[in-house]
């Protein structure tokens, strides 16, 4: 029966003949592991296509909806975070494998006559890959995509004469907006894939016509006599490679907990843009081409490099494929590669030292976590940025200004009856308090606690332990916590401060769950409680604040600390457990266990 159906289909379509024609390619000189990269790229392209198609069914290309739809995909769907992660890291994998493929083709001399057009179509495919990377980066419409893409479109603008018009055409207007996103979306999901498939078809057809280019030392007779069938000899190797790549990509997705989604693009912020790693060398190059030389970095050098790649098969006409006979071209290609690597390393090195970038990364993480938290209650149709309009932080700030700032200074603003709240609750703040409670920044002469005479490192250990009792401490250091616990519990602290049991009273504040939401809430409601300052208290009780006002105020207090991710809405605590596939693991609480 099945046989008959098979025959019927075969009779009408010639399917198995077609399949045979596709798979029965003779591999002259034998199947080789060195031939896996081209088919590896085809595999990655298919992977990008299917993950992309599934993501497209959740994506909404508009400046008000894009971030929300990606947020939904990432945090609200099953496996959305994984699929998006595979697509994200898959693009990096494609870049890497494409570079390897290109250099292998170069080293093997596979661009030489009669394969000039193989090479040229390959260079065009590489350009398409770059186009995919560039257009895809913008689509989530988050801070980093938005600002990094601005750099790219501004570079377009530096092209003499026509630059301005190209830029407007790409942006869909003079500034970023709905049409920027619809255009980038069109490029990313329609134009580029269609063009890529077209050139890929040519590329593969040409490859089939000319066959593989083996290792240059392979003897003529081996090349002539040893013929392996493509299926299964070569395909086996290709499948092993594809499986290996997918395992690595999936591993990276799990390890990094999926691709990052920063907070919604805010045109009013001043964000230091950084492109994806494979464009970093171009970005770094621009730093050395300032002022009127800008065009050297944006247009001239890239254009020269590309021209070189395009004309390479025509200038290197020597028929020998031995590297020793092609030294000038090896020199040119590898100095280009070295230049790009050096520029990339420089850019990364510079960023890892730049305090503004480090600070911005921390802020961006916090902000992203905040955005995700707020988006949970739904994003107003006015756009993703509006989630911040109803942010309890804003309300908390208002309450602080009304009720607290008279005694607690922040920055230069505020009174000095109580401790200075600049960076309140941060490691620096707590360590400073331990070092000298009588400091003008803290309790001044009314400070009853004696300064702790221990080395700074020990103070930091104690700080780490104290802060570890509340949620949301970023980059928590478990060793410090252990050492600090030892110091606090076995030292003199517990003579005055109860710790471990919430209800115990001694002469100084109970430090159980110190600075947690509950602790702060109870403290602010009644600082004169015997569990806190008791009779020595000077701060008024703020029991008139409603629960939601108090929650907002505490969120605001948390936000003052640079060491804390904002964990609000306590009902979430129970739910945040990570269940494979069902929830995205990249919630704010996970910032804790990065050390």
């Amino acid at each position, binding site marked *: 029966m099945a046989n008959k159906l098979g025959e019927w289909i075969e009779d009408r379509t010639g399917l198995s003949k077609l399949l045979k024609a596709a798979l029965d390619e003779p591999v002259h000189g034998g199947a080789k592991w060195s031939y896996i990269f081209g088919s590896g790229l085809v595999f990655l392209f298919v992977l990008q296509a299917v993950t992309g198609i*599934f993501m497209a069914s959740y994506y909404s290309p508009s400046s008000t909806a894009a971030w929300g739809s990606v947020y*939904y995909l990432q945090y609200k*769907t*099953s496996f959305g975070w994984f*699929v998006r992660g595979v697509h994200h890291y898959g693009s990096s994998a494609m870049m890497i494998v494409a570079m390897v493929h290109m250099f292998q083709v170069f080293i093997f001399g596979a661009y030489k006559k009669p394969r000039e057009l193989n090479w040229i179509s390959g260079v065009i495919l590489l350009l398409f890959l770059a186009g995919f990377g560039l257009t895809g980066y913008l689509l989530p419409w988050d801070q980093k995509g938005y600002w990094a893409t601005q750099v790219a479109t501004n570079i377009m603008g530096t092209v003499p004469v026509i630059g301005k018009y190209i830029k407007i055409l790409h942006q869909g207007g003079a500034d970023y907006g709905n049409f920027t996103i619809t255009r980038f979306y069109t490029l990313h999901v329609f134009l580029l894939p269609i063009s890529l498939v077209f050139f890929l078809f040519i590329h593969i057809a040409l490859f089939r016509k000319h066959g593989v280019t083996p290792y240059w030392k392979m003897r003529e007779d081996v090349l002539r006599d040893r013929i392996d069938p493509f299926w299964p000899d070569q395909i086996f190797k290709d499948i092993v490679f594809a499986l290996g790549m997918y395992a690595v990509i999936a591993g990276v997705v799990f390890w990094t907990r999926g691709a990052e989604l920063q907070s919604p693009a805010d045109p009013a912020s001043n964000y230091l843009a950084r492109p994806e790693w494979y464009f970093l060398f171009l970005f770094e190059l621009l730093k050395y081409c300032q002022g009127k030389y800008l065009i050297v970095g944006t247009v001239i050098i890239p254009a020269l490099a590309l021209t070189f790649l395009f004309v390479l098969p025509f200038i290197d006409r020597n028929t020998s494929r031995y590297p020793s006979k092609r030294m000038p071209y090896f020199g040119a290609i590898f100095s280009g590669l070295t230049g790009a690597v050096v520029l990339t390393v420089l850019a990364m090195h510079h960023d890892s030292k730049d305090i503004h970038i480090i600070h911005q990364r921390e802020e961006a993480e916090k902000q992203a976590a905040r955005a995700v938290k707020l988006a949970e209650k*739904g994003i107003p149709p006015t756009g993703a940025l509006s989630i911040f309009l109803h942010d309890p932080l804003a309300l908390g700030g208002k309450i602080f200004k009304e009720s607290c700032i008279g005694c607690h200074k922040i920055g230069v603003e505020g009174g000095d009856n109580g401790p200075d709240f600049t960076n309140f609750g941060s490691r620096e703040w707590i360590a400073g308090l331990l070092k000298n409670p009588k400091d003008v920044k803290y309790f001044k002469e009314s400070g009853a606690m004696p300064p702790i005479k221990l080395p700074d490192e020990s103070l930091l250990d104690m700080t780490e332990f104290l802060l570890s009792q509340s949620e949301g401490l970023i980059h928590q250091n478990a060793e410090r916590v252990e050492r600090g616990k030892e110091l606090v519990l076995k030292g003199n602290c517990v003579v005055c401060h109860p710790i471990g049991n919430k209800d115990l009273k001694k002469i100084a504040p109970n430090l159980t769950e110190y600075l947690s939401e509950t602790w702060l809430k109870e403290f602010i409601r009644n600082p004169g409680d015997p569990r806190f300052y008791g009779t020595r208290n000077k701060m008024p009780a703020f029991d008139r604040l409603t629960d939601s006002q108090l929650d907002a105020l505490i969120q605001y207090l948390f936000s003052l600390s640079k060491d804390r991710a904002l964990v609000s809405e306590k009902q979430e605590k129970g739910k945040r457990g990570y269940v494979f596939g069902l929830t995205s693991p990249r919630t704010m609480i996970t910032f804790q266990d990065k050390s």
Partner: protein
Amino acid sequence: MVENNRRKFLKVVSHSLGGVLAAGIAAPLVGLGIHPWLKETVYGTEDFINLGKLEDFPVGIPKKMNVTSSKMDAWNVFEGLVMGSVWVLRKEDDSLKVFSVNCPHLGCGINWGEDEKQFLCPCHEGVFDINGKVLSGPAPRSLYSYETKIENDNVLVNYKKLI
């Protein structure tokens, strides 16, 4: 012969590895694709919707009220959307009846006839008494109603479920 066996073996291994790879890729994609089966994507955020203070409803005279609610649509929240309207009847003992405005016959909007003291359907002359019971016309049953309750003097209605 050895070569043939080797190729046979390679074919089997390639098929299995290819199958593992395809399954590994397809599983999360299917998981993502069936998301609307697993989770509600469009839903009202409240079960009971506030229609206003009890004292704003006159005793014994049905009053037509718009039902507004907030709705989640995937990532978006829409506040204050008009979902529809209902007839609210406050009885002498302050108990409430909340009727659907749609005739149980073919769904036309019914009106309260002030003179007749009856609900009248303009489409096929259906007539219902103040408690929603069919008096005449083609309607197969009494007016649909909604579960309702009073909390802190607020009239709340569960607009999700017709009774």
